Structures are given as C-alpha cells and as structure tokens.
C-alpha cells in the first residue's frame, strides 16, 4: 500500500490481485450476479484509488476496502431502487456463477454443495440490503460482529439485530423453499 502511495503502479496490481477475489466474492454474495459484482468491484477499486491518500501507514487496509465496497453496494442499490440484481429470466443461467465465476456444477470445492449454495444465494437475495450485508459479513465472510459493524458504519448492537433478523428471515425463506420443492 505504501509503495502504491509512492506511485508504484505494479504495487497496486499486486494489491489488486491479492484482495480482488475476496472483494469480488463479497460483492457477488450481495448482488447475486457476477456482472453486477464485477461492476461494483471496479467502482470500489476506483474509489480506493482516488482516496489512497487517506491510507495511514502501517494500518490494515482491508476493513477500509470492505467499507468502501459496502458503501458502493448500498449507493448502487439506492440508485437503482432495487436491492437485488435479479438474474432470473436474463441470460446468466449459471447460479451461483455470480459468486464463483464458474459453473456451480463444476465446482469441486470440498463441502460446496451447489444446490445448497444456490438456495442460500436465492434466499439472501430476498433480504433487505442491510440484513443481507449483515448475514454476508458475519456468516459468510467470517467477520466478528464488531468488525462487521465497523465496516457497515453502525453500532455493534444494530449489527447484531440486523444479522439476527437477516438470519431468521433467511431460515424462513429456506424452509418455505424446501416445502415448495417437496410439494
């Protein structure tokens, strides 16, 4: 980051290669679409680039990157007046390709059941943006509630409430989806 601040473009490329998969995965879980996640990723890095002077030497920049991604996602969701970039009916047939960038049925990650992942992603897409983000940060990105609150710019209490409500809503959505599939 310091080399990048000093004007070394290669340092930025290294940083991008290092952080991009994590950020893209995060944005993919929020948007449910690879194309939308890619677009938000580019916006996020452009903002990081323009605000690089704000970096404090020796600090961990990752929470700052997440905060910028968070803000970019919410700004975009508000701008478009829609929380979910729906893929249903359009020409992106492979879900959760939005997250992985590859077909789910080609995924060979241990423990990655494409059907379950698809169901979780669909249910996440039904949540309001703030609850969705709380669930993604705390349950999928492995952030503590305090870290998630810092990233989202809210209190620990509010983040707990959002994550809990989001998780409960997700549970109900998945249960009803299961009943529908059985019926």
């Amino acid at each position, binding site marked *: 980051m*310091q080399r990048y*601040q*000093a*004007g070394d*473009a290669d340092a*930025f490329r290294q940083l*991008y*290669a290092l952080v*991009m*998969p*994590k950020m*893209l995965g995060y944005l993919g*879980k929020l948007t449910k679409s*690879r194309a939308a996640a890619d677009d938000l990723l*580019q*916006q996020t*890095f*452009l*903002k990081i*680039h*323009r*605000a*690089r*002077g704000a*970096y*404090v030497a*020796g*600090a*961990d*920049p990752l929470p*700052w990157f997440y*905060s910028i991604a*968070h*803000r970019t996602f919410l700004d975009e969701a508000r*701008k478009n007046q829609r929380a979910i970039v729906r893929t249903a009916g359009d020409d992106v047939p492979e879900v*959760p390709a939005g*997250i*992985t*960038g590859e077909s*789910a049925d080609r*995924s060979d990650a*241990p*423990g*990655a*059941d*494409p059907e*379950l*992942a698809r*169901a*979780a*992603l669909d*249910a*996440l897409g039904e949540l309001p943006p703030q609850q969705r983000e709380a669930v993604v940060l705390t*349950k*999928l990105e*492995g952030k503590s509630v305090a870290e998630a609150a810092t990233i989202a710019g809210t*209190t620990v209490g509010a983040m707990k409430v959002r994550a809990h409500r989001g998780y409960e809503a*997700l*549970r109900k959505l*998945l249960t009803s989806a299961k009943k529908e599939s059985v019926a």
Partner: protein
Amino acid sequence: MSAEQSLDALAAMPDPAASPIGALLEAELGSLAPVTARRPYRQLGMFVVASLVYAALLLGALSPRADLGELPPMWLMGAGAAWFSGFGLATYFALVPKAGAMTPRWRAAIATTTITAVAFVVLGLGVHPDGAHSLHYGMPHLLRGHGCLWLGLATSLAPVVLGAVFLRGAVPVFSRWVAAAIGAAGGCLGGLLLHMHCRIADGPHIGIIHGGGVVVAAGLAALLVPRATDRPYRS
C-alpha cells in the same frame, strides 16, 4: 436443508475467477502520481495549533471581557479548561484512528459530540457567575445576544475547513458523525473564545447561545463537511 447448511455451502464455494482491472482504472494507473500518506498525529498537531492561532487572532481583534477580573478565577479556568477539553477530545476522536486502523473512532466521536453539546448547554444554563461589569439580557432579550452565535460559528470555520481537508477520503462510512465531531470541536473553540470575550453573564445566553453554538456548528458540519470528505467515493 437448514439455513446453517446452506450458508456453509455458500461460504465453502471457491474464490471467484480473476476479474481484470477495468479500463477507467487502468487509465488512471497510467498517470499514477505519488501521494502523501495520512499522518493522524501530525494532522492533529497542525489542526490544534492552526485552530488556536486563528482563535487567538480573532480574540486579538476583539477585546477581552470587561468583567474578567471580577469573576471567580477557579470558574474562569475550569470553564476554559472544559471548553478546551471539548475541542481537544472531539478533534482527537475525529482525526486519530485506533492503532492499526484507518478510520476515525466514530463511536467515541459521536459520544463526545453528544456530551459536549448537551453539557455546555446545561452547564451554561446552570453555572454563570457574574461581576459588576457583566451584562444580563435574560430570556426575554435572548436574541439580542445573537452576535455571539455568529462569532462562535466564525471561530469554528477554520477547524471545520481543516477537518474537511484532513479527512478527505478517510471516512467511507459514518462520515456525518465524524463531521459532526469536527463541528463540535469548532463549536467548543468558539465557546472558548466567547468565554474570554463575552461579558453577557446570564444563564440563557451562556447556555443557549454559547452552548448552542456547539450544537449548531456540529449540525452544520454534519451537513456540509461530507460533501468534501466523501468526494472520492462519489460514483
């Protein structure tokens, strides 16, 4: 199919395939200029010194309060220290992040802003010693003392502008709260200047006009400063 299992499956999905750097970002990288890293403690020092010099110049252009020698020295020093502490604490929390972090301590900034705003109004209403040369407008003529509000806001101008410059890009979220803390710091500096200059010594004037200056400065800063600090984050 439990929610936990589904989330676990989603979390276990592999990392996404690489996404190349976009054309716009590549273009900006083509003309990459070096930038200076933010140094919070250095900024804090510059902020405090520049703000105090500005306030001292303003006070020099005005006159010290006529009843200065008639007031209890302990109250004079205590109230001055309180105004200065409000200024220093709000500035510190708004500018200096925790070790290893990048973003300011916004929760502490919120707490400081709220406490200073409320405390100075309440203390001003409740504790207001006077001397033979003090003036008393009282509640019926409260608005006659509106000049103090403008003077307090004028004093807060330099800290607020400096804060907007120093925090550019540093607060991607909760920027309004951090801006409010910068405004509260400016309002406290205004209160300190008024404490040394204004001889109106009734409770409503000190509480509502002097203390209210902190509230107004914090509100105005919350409204205006993010326009500057959030500039790099606009799409």
